[in-house]
């Protein structure tokens, strides 16, 4: 079997494993609550004032229990939960009852994935290019200055930066935030264009901050690779400076690409907060509304879809990894 095929199968199995583990975590959370989600829904409905008699309430409570699959022994519940979630049926949303969670989330997911991929790739490219340039350039002072800025920003939490940027964006620059719900019923390219316009403000916010992390990681890595044996040797064979730059970048590319693949999960945190602050209609915004409405079911759905979304994005990027690292296409001897 060709090593490339073996690699793709391996990555696909890991993709399925991620979804399974993610799903198990979501199940554990949903069952480890101090109160019972179904009771919450029943009380919520009763609070709307209803003229149902005693037994009818009991009957409704049983159907809702069954809907949530409660009451059965834990492994049956788990199995049911798996089946439901894998088929995309995540039960009703508490706040917008009887709207299905999957429909709500399905609208917001593309926005989030679009922003997540765009933000990660742009910050990754800018950060790494700047990092290599800084490591190899002869202009010491400039590269040191950039490094100090990046270092200074590291300890500051992203949330604090997000608030400061929001304030700068709205109050100082006086720019408006595009609001309004999710566009529906328009041709595909129109939605895409609208998605791109909507994502510009949050995207710039993330990129202005995000590149620094990659910059520092690449600068240290490039400095280390610059002193490797094969770079010393290629200098001795008479290679000009731009070839050395190309070699260092090419060899630093692999570990940094792995870092990108794994960091999508981390990037999601920052993205969700920026989506909420900039009212960008992604999972972040949806999460905020579900917290305000205490809509547990919707939250569980969002958590699950976030895991699926990030896992898919990682899997897609993973497929391009063999192009980056020849050791995958041609494994060593023994």
């Amino acid at each position, binding site marked *: *079997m060709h090593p490339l095929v*073996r690699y793709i199968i391996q990555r696909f199995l890991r993709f399925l494993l991620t979804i399974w583990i993610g799903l198990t975590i979501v199940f554990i959370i949903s069952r480890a609550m101090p109160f019972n989600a179904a009771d919450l829904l029943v009380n919520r409905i009763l609070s709307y004032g209803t003229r149902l008699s005693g037994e009818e309430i009991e009957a409704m409570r049983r159907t809702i229990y069954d809907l949530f699959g409660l009451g059965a022994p834990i492994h049956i519940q788990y199995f049911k939960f798996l089946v439901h979630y894998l088929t995309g049926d995540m039960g009703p949303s508490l706040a917008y009852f009887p709207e299905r969670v999957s429909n709500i989330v399905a609208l917001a997911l593309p926005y989030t994935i679009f922003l997540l991929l765009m933000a990660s790739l742009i910050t990754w490219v800018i950060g790494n290019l700047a990092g290599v340039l800084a490591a190899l350039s002869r202009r010491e002072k400039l590269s040191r200055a950039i490094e100090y800025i990046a270092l200074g920003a590291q300890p500051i939490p992203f949330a604090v930066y997000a608030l400061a940027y929001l304030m700068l964006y709205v109050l100082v620059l006086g720019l408006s935030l595009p609001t309004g719900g999710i566009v529906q019923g328009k041709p595909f390219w129109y939605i895409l264009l609208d998605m791109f316009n909507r994502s510009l403000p949050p995207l710039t916010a993330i990129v202005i901050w995000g590149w620094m992390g990659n910059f520092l990681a690449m600068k240290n890595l490039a400095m280390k690779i610059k002193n490797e044996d094969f770079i010393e040797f290629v200098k001795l064979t008479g290679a000009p400076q731009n070839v050395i730059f190309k070699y260092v970048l090419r060899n630093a590319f692999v570990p940094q690409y792995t870092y990108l693949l794994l960091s999508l999960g981390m990037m999601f945190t920052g993205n969700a907060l920026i989506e909420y602050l900039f009212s960008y209609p992604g999972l972040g915004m949806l999460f905020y509304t579900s917290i305000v409405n205490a809509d547990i079911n919707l939250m569980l759905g969002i958590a699950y879809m976030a895991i699926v979304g990030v896992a898919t994005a990682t899997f897609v990027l993973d497929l391009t990894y063999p192009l980056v690292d020849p050791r995958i296409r041609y494994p060593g*001897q*023994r």
Partner: protein
Amino acid sequence: MILVNADVNNYLLYIDKITKTYGYGLLGLRRFKALDEVTLALPLQEPEILVLIGETGSGKTTLLKIVLRIVTPDAGSVYYKGKDIFKLRSSEVRWYRREVQAIFQDPYETFNPLRTVDGYLFDTAKHLLGLDRKEAEALIDETLNFVGLSLSRVKGKKIKEFSGGELQRVSIARAILTKPRLLLADEPVSMLDASLRVNILNIFREMKKKLGLSIIYVTHDLATAYYVGDEMAVLYRGVLVETGSAEDLYKEPLHPYTQLLMNSILEPDIGVKNRIRPIKLSSIEIKEFIAPGCKFASRCPYATPRCHKEIPPTITVDNRRYVRCWLYAK
């Protein structure tokens, strides 16, 4: 060193048909034999230096790790003073560790760069001999003097402050601290300067004479092998191709591979230019391990079709001389 399976009790060490296979290729499904039924023995009464001759990838390091109980073999067993070392009771493990010690090829990798070198000596004293720091000091200083150093020279220093030769002496001192009966040396001099090797080998000879220590000395350099060895065993791709006393092997190497090794020694005098037959380099390395017939067939000047198909049996030349080559089959 008799290969016929005799009574294991009157041998210091008896390695009986040790076999170890490793996986390679897809998910390691295809197996190849790193060691193929290797049988060796060291006498109990008087100390002996057995030289194990083999190039990188001949399986010698795997064999040493098996004797040190770091790696477990797939088949065969190892007896030390009659006891199977893989069936030792937990109390006997510490005894075995005291009796059998080892030194390694690269002196700068033997010690942790962040730790002081004497730490290893005090650790050995504490854990294997139960001596605390004060009691161990005299013994350590005495052992270091034996190898030409002293505790004051070594105390509180890290590997940066030593030359390769000095570090190898400290490594030897650490190994002989517990008065072992067997020392395993994995190419101890190949990383040192050619001119410094003889100093270390002289220590080996003294250890055998004065401490009654048997040594398994692994190398690919036949000159040093003859200088220090009593018995020799040639290992090629996990197969024992020739064994015998040092004199026999030096005077009359039988196996073509031993002859090739003998011819490749570069000696510091003018005659070497015309004494050496220049050789063509072979380029088949991994394939040799899985070759059906004699592993050396692809490089052997006398190879016959039979060599490529069948593994030659072990032929007894006289009571202590064995060779595994079709040239000598009856």
